[in-house]
């Protein structure tokens, strides 16, 4: 029934949630219209909820191998880790974009990276069944072979998060290219942003450990030797030796 002053009245309500899922799918597909949504405040709100909710669930799946309590700790720390990584690299990434000749505002730089994290979280959510399967079937933290189990889960998470991060940033390419108006510039910015996030993200994951947990020590929110010593790569090398 038409309202002559306001126009047609919708006979059916269109809830926003399904359309935001459709936008999420379009973002993952790399559709160019995703660049237009960066100014939509409600869409950004949905993205933040998706981001933090998804990271909460994935952090839970990471820690499940060690113990349910470690799962809850991981669920709380993983969104914080991503938030610190995003904010930690925001200024550097904006400056690198300026140096590459891209006329990107700080806000736009941050929003484009946020979209990248949204794609990352979507990929990680699809890997939760796999993560829980690995947690349940590799040597448990309480049995023999616990160190092998820890190594397997660690490598799985490293490849899952690293691979998802690379794929998400590659998906961002069209957004960066749309903003920069130059394919070559966008390519360089993509590589620099990816390197910065991988570098800081991996190191912060070491600093905020444990996420998976150590079977040799009780479950803890932060390691009692966190913030003090060691490195991400050094720990990874040591765990690689356990697999053989």
């Amino acid at each position, binding site marked *: 029934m038409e309202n002559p002053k306001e126009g047609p009245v919708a006979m059916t309500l269109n809830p926003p949630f399904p359309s935001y899922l459709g936008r999420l799918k379009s973002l993952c597909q790399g559709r160019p219209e995703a660049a237009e949504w960066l100014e939509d405040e409600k869409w950004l709100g949905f993205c933040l909820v998706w981001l933090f909710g998804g990271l909460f669930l994935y952090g839970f799946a990471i820690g499940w191998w060690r113990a349910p309590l470690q799962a809850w700790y991981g669920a709380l720390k993983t969104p914080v880790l991503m938030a610190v990584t995003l904010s930690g690299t925001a200024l550097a990434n904006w400056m690198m974009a300026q140096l590459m000749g891209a006329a990107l505002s700080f806000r736009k730089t941050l929003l484009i990276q946020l979209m990248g994290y949204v794609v990352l979280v979507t*990929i990680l*959510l699809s890997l939760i*069944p796999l993560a829980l*399967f690995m947690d349940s079937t590799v*040597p448990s933290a309480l049995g023999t072979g616990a160190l092998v189990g820890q190594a397997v889960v660690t490598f799985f998470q490293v490849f899952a998060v690293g691979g998802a991060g690379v794929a998400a940033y590659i998906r961002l390419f069209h957004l960066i290219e749309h903003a920069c108006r130059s394919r070559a510039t966008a390519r360089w910015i993509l590589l620099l942003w990816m390197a910065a996030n991988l570098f800081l993200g991996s190191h912060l994951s070491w600093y905020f450990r444990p996420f998976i947990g150590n079977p040799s020590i009780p479950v803890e929110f932060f390691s009692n030797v966190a913030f003090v010593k060691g490195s991400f790569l050094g720990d990874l090398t040591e765990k690689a030796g356990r697999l*053989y």
Partner: protein
Amino acid sequence: MEPKTTLVPQVKIRSYKGRLEEDFKSPGGPPQWITALEAVLKHPAQLVYDISKGRKGWGAYLLATLILGGLFYGFVMGTFSGGTQLWASPVKFAFGLLTSAIITFPSLYIFTCVNGADLKIQTVFSLLLLSLSLVVVLLVGFAPVAWIFSQTTDNIVLMGWIHLILWVASVWFGLRLLSAAFGLLARDFSQGLSAWAFIFLLVCFQMSAVLRPILGTSKEFLTDEKVFFLSHWFKCMGN
């Protein structure tokens, strides 16, 4: 001057993708199991066409092919040890294959989205069923080879390697079909599918360790000890 004649007829060699593109049309007629089995091997593009159009019926036959083919190949695996493995191995193999597909399906769908394809979730699931049906049909074809080896050797490590090689070869053909199907419907999906293939094989191998013993014998249906599949393989080879 006499015209040159060729002794060898000129045969146009079509690529796999090219053959599928030529065959990309409806098979015609109602879905039937025999038609599905034939189409899986000879005309998979026709099934891909019907799946893309949302035509119902093929999914059930593909699922039935997957289950029954898995049970049959599992039975052949069980003939190595005999006894309870004659029923335990088929159940474990079919269950493991289906569970591995279900665990890895969400990542396959998301990877297709990230790759830029705009396919419905039902379509992707049906394509996965199609490719796994091909895997199982190939395994059934390899079953006589596996059976002969299982009757002529008692070396469990050798049998393990034989089943592993046959499995990987069959999965390779299945993934080739899956990749070509995505290429027909959307766009090439080589890199993302390689990543997903790695995940799928990882889950299948770990599943084989979870459901052991499949080849050997045991007093229990499943063992309590949790192992990583690589550790288990190295341990078996060392023994």
